[in-house]
């Protein structure tokens, strides 16, 4: 417990080094990671968590840099988690989101961490939620999460962030693209960045038309904000809308969303724990290899094999 409690004690005091170390632990899934998360869990839930998603190259990082500046002007402390993809070939990653944010790196009220997906699907790293908690417990008021350049179905950000901003750039496609399921459904706020380009208004019209076609979830109508992240134009308006969304959530939907988020997480934790438990038990007995051979010789199918494995472990724990 010593390492974990030491790290947690000093990160609760806002020590940047401890925050960085804690994130490495949860990211690497070390033996201390679960202890760290358990110890700081009671200290979480204060920060406002905002997801920023959209395709690669629309300007998410640049927009975040401007958002952070504006938030700092208002006296808020900010944590940024910037996720970039891991190579499916080498397992390596090139994490370049910081390039747009480096002027913020010496500001003590800002903590920026780059993360690789490590092949986690859904547009985020597996340790994103735990990292949010670490930054939250360390006292950051606002946490911004930048997803990988998300195409259409990388929508896991809704499992973590109560407010999701979808960033688009002019010329992303015609009205048909806006009706497709996936990322276009998850925006609480839409941003048309690079609004100094001439087709920006057309993009706004397309999004508005899309929103009017659909049935509303709740009373919130997602606003559309035009920004030019390179100059900062529209950024304060975006922050206003983020504030309005928070207020809207606090009038009722917040607890519902929080419940959904916690439930998702619990389900995920149960799946992981049980799967790990079963696989380790099978491996110890050599039963895993046995089942693999049976699958290869077509004696059994994967679902039945899983059933057999599960039964074996359940009856054994009953006997105990």
């Amino acid at each position, binding site marked *: 417990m010593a390492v974990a409690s030491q790290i947690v004690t000093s990160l609760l005091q806002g020590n*940047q080094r401890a925050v*960085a170390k804690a994130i490495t632990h949860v990211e690497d899934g*070390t033996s201390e990671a679960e202890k760290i998360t358990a110890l700081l869990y009671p200290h979480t839930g204060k920060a406002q968590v905002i997801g920023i998603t959209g395709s690669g190259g629309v300007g998410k990082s640049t927009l975040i840099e401007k958002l952070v500046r504006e938030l700092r002007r208002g006296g808020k402390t900010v944590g940024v988690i910037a996720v970039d993809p891991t190579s499916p070939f080498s397992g*390596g990653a*090139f994490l370049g989101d910081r*390039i747009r944010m480096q002027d913020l790196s010496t500001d003590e009220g800002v903590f920026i961490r780059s993360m690789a997906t490590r092949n986690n699907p859904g547009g985020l790293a597996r340790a994103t939620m735990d990292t949010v908690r670490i930054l939250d417990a360390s006292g950051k008021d606002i946490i911004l999460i930048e997803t990988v350049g998300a195409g259409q179905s990388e929508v896991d950000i809704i499992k973590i962030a109560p407010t999701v901003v979808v960033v688009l750039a002019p010329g992303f496609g015609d009205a048909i693209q806006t009706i497709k399921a996936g990322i276009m459904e998850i925006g609480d706020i839409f941003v048309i960045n690079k609004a100094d380009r001439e087709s920006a208004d057309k993009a706004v019209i397309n999004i508005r038309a899309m929103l009017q076609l659909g049935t509303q979830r709740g009373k919130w109508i997602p606003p559309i904000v035009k920004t030019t992240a390179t100059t900062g134009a529209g950024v304060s308006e975006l922050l206003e809308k983020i504030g309005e969304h928070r207020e809207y959530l606090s009038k009722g939907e917040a607890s519902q969303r929080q419940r959904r988020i916690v439930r998702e997480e619990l389900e995920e934790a149960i799946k992981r724990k049980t799967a790990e438990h079963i696989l380790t038990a099978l491996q110890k007995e050599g039963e895993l290899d046995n089942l693999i051979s049976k699958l290869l010789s077509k004696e059994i199918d994967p679902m039945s094999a899983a059933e057999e494995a599960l039964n074996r472990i359940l009856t054994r724990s009953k006997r105990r």
Partner: protein
Amino acid sequence: MTEKKIRILVAKPGLDSHDRGAKVVARALRDAGMEVIYTGLRQTPEQIVETVLQEDVDVLGLSILSGAHMTHFPKIMNLMKQKDLKDVLVFAGGIIPEEDIEPLQKLGIREIFGPGTPTETVIDFVKKNVQKSR
């Protein structure tokens, strides 16, 4: 579920006007399975060291072409010491004259790679010297 990866910051202090070499090295390290954080051109020593701290990297690779290495590198190594980041492996590359190599190594920069170094040499160096017991 333990999954350790070598995390490395490739940084360019000072006023270099291009970063082709740094990008080649960054790309090679990525292809060798490492997580490479890249911060772009014109970084101050303070920015670099703060990034090392926040990103909790195992390795720092410094690239410099301008000739200002004897100004920037000591500052960086000093700040690293102040922030207790002594266990980070530091190497450098770029245009660095022979006679500066020894004083730089005395500061704690473990290796200095000149122009034309094969990327495999850099990868091998990192893999052999990185402390994965941190």
